[in-house]
């Protein structure tokens, strides 16, 4: 894989050579994260988020494994065992706050990563599978996060589990049977908690496995870049190490600083007070909301308030799942040969609207189900579906893209010289995505 001009792995020591001949792991690392992986030289800070997502996964798995040494998955003691971690276990408060805030930051990183993919057309040929494997990871993450949130057995855990599993009751005929099957009972109870714990422990390793497939598939065509123009020759790329190891280290530092501010100084800011009340099957909190990273989808779920052939509840469930699943078809819904929004003047505007739209959906999803939020969420949902399913297929066919640079190297040079230079390649993309090379 990689490009013909990539520097092949050369063991520096006798031991390295001996090892490499028998088990070429050093070679694998060199080719995927070392000097053997050639990367477009113009990628910007948005390309840091893939590595950051990997780091976030590692943090979650590491803290999760040690938390599991103290947590007890039984409805009688689950809540108390979390308090035991917080009060008595050495550094338990730190490990738990890392895990809880780490989950939020994992999602922040992944959302930015997805937005970057949308903006620069990373989902397009030849990277469709990279995109789709990413979506699989995203779905697994959502399942993992949802089940993890149930484990502390607070009020939000319990009622979140109740509401989300009840979504499946919208399925005609077999809905209730499926819910009972998922719960292992007629309500969320000990059986549910135990299976959620088991799956919550398992899925991160599945995510790690899919991540390896994703990186593998990414390294066939190599990374996309802000121009969306494929690599043409050696002038377009530089080795991952040391150039991007250095840049990713810096990005990691910034990420850890922001994460640390949350963990140490506002550890409960992203949580909900009700989850510090032990689960009570006989009393629902006044205002239940999922964790913030589910808000956009929760808003779509609640936007369907009218029965039309199918009951409103079923529409909501279908739409919520559709809102994620439709992204699997993105590579074919978008027919434009141009990848980067930098060179797509019309689609760029629509995509900006979409990003704002998702934020509006998130805001509505976190708000109570009352006016004006419901109507706003309905309008925002209309745009969400219209964007992907109607606007994108049509506009991508009709718009006239701006002229593309012949190569990445040319784009980099022009970008440098174009200050005040006449049109040709508009420099508008730079504002949205500052390039490190500048």
């Amino acid at each position, binding site marked *: 894989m990689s490009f013909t001009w990539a520097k092949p792995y050369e063991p520096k020591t006798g031991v390295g050579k001996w090892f490499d001949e028998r088990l070429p792991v050093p070679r694998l690392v060199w080719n995927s994260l070392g000097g053997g992986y050639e990367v477009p*030289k113009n990628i910007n800070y948005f390309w840091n988020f893939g590595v950051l997502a990997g780091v976030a996964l590692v943090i979650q798995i590491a803290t999760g494994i040690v938390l599991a040494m103290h947590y007890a998955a039984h409805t009688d003691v689950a809540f108390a065992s979390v*308090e035991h971690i*917080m*009060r008595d276990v050495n550094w338990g*408060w*730190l490990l738990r*706050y890392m895990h809880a805030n780490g989950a939020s930051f994992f999602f922040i990183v992944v959302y930015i990563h997805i937005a970057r993919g949308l903006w620069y057309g990373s989902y397009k040929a030849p990277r469709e599978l990279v995109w789709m494997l990413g979506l699989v990871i995203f779905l697994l993450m959502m399942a993992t996060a949802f089940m993890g949130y149930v484990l502390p057995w607070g009020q939000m855990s319990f009622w979140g589990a109740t509401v989300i599993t009840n979504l499946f009751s919208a399925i005609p005929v077999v809905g209730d049977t499926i819910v009972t099957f998922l719960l292992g009972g007629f309500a969320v109870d000990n059986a549910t908690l135990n299976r959620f714990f088991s799956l919550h422990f398992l899925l991160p390793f599945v995510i790690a496995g899919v991540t390896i497939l994703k990186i593998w598939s990414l390294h066939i065509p190599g990374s996309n870049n802000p121009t969306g123009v494929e690599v043409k020759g*050696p*002038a377009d790329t*530089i*080795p991952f*190490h*040391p*150039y991007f*190891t*250095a*840049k990713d*280290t*810096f990005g*990691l*530092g*910034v990420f*850890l*600083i922001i994460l*640390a*501010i949350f963990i*140490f*100084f*506002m550890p409960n800011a992203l949580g909900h*007070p009700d989850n*510090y*009340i032990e689960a009570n099957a006989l009393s629902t909190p006044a205002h239940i909301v999922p964790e913030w990273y589910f808000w956009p989808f929760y808003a779509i779920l609640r*936007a369907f*308030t*009218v029965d*039309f052939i199918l009951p*409103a509840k079923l529409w909501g469930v279908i*739409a919520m799942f*559709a809102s994620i699943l*439709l992204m699997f*078809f993105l590579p*074919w*819904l978008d*027919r434009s040969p141009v990848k980067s929004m930098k060179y797509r003047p019309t689609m760029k505007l629509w995509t900006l609207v979409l990003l704002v739209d998702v934020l509006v959906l998130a805001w509505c999803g976190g708000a109570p189900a009352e*006016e004006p939020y419901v109507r706003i969420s*309905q309008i925002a*949902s*209309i745009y969400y*579906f*219209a964007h*992907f*399913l*109607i606007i994108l*297929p*049509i506009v991508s066919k009709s718009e006239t893209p701006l002229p593309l640079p012949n190569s990445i190297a*040319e784009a*980099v*040079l022009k970008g440098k010289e174009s200050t005040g230079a006449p049109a040709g390649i508009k420099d508008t993309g730079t504002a949205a995505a500052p390039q*490190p*090379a500048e």
Partner: protein
Amino acid sequence: MVRIVGILAGAVFVFVLVLAALAPREDVPVDPTEEFHAHAHAPEGGWSWDGPLGLGVFGGYDNQQLQRGFKVFREVCSACHSLRYVSFRNLEGIGFSEAEVKVIAEEWPLEVAATNPDTGEATTEPAIPADRFPLVYPNEIAARAANNNAAPPDLSLMAKARADGANYIYSLMSGYQPVPADFPEDRVQESLHYNPYFHSLWIAMPPQLSDGLVTYDDGTEATTEQMAADVAAFLHWTAEPKMVERKTAGIGVLIFLLLFTSLSYVAYKRVWADVKASKVGGPGTRGGRADKGIHADAPGEGDHEA
């Protein structure tokens, strides 16, 4: 094909959503008690853990205050409210000595469950420091039965289980007041007590604090506000006993990360310096590669250390 199906599916979703958006809304009756709700606020002078500028970065607990708050809890709250996640030994964290804690545990009005070693029957015995604060009621049914169907909640986590926790506890405890004259008559709940800080305005717990109710050992005047603030601070500690440890560790971690990130930024810029230099060279020059000879593998050196 994908696009045709997509556009059709999109049209269906949009159509159903347009129906929903256009559907008339039922009038939501205006809540006539809306205006009577009050926002929780901090006591005068704020909290010890607010720290400079109220950023919450510095600022720990004031053990004097926590001990006063504990006294209020012991003499007032503990008659009905439990503290099930806190152990007597934890009191050493607010400045009580080991011996004092032992006495507090032993003299606590409630005993802990035990087994009679001779008969095997359930019994109780005085608490030891390792025990948690004994429950006031064995279960929720008993709590309801004894309190007119309103179970007093456990207070261990109250400061984290309510939005704006410590402010809320302080405001609630010091916020009882007579029902305003213009309060809608039909919303008055005779069996409950008016408190503008409670989510429904009507709380089952009667006012507990009154000036001079407890006698503070440190001579602080026991006004209602003072006691409310002290007990709120105490409950903030019971909910987040590791706060001081957390902040101290946090400051260390942040200083370290800032240094590390600055260093890594400089390293990043230096690694990239030759790429940028080569850009002036014109198309076709391979950044990095072209300079390698001159810079004697500077990036390669990084190889071993990274």
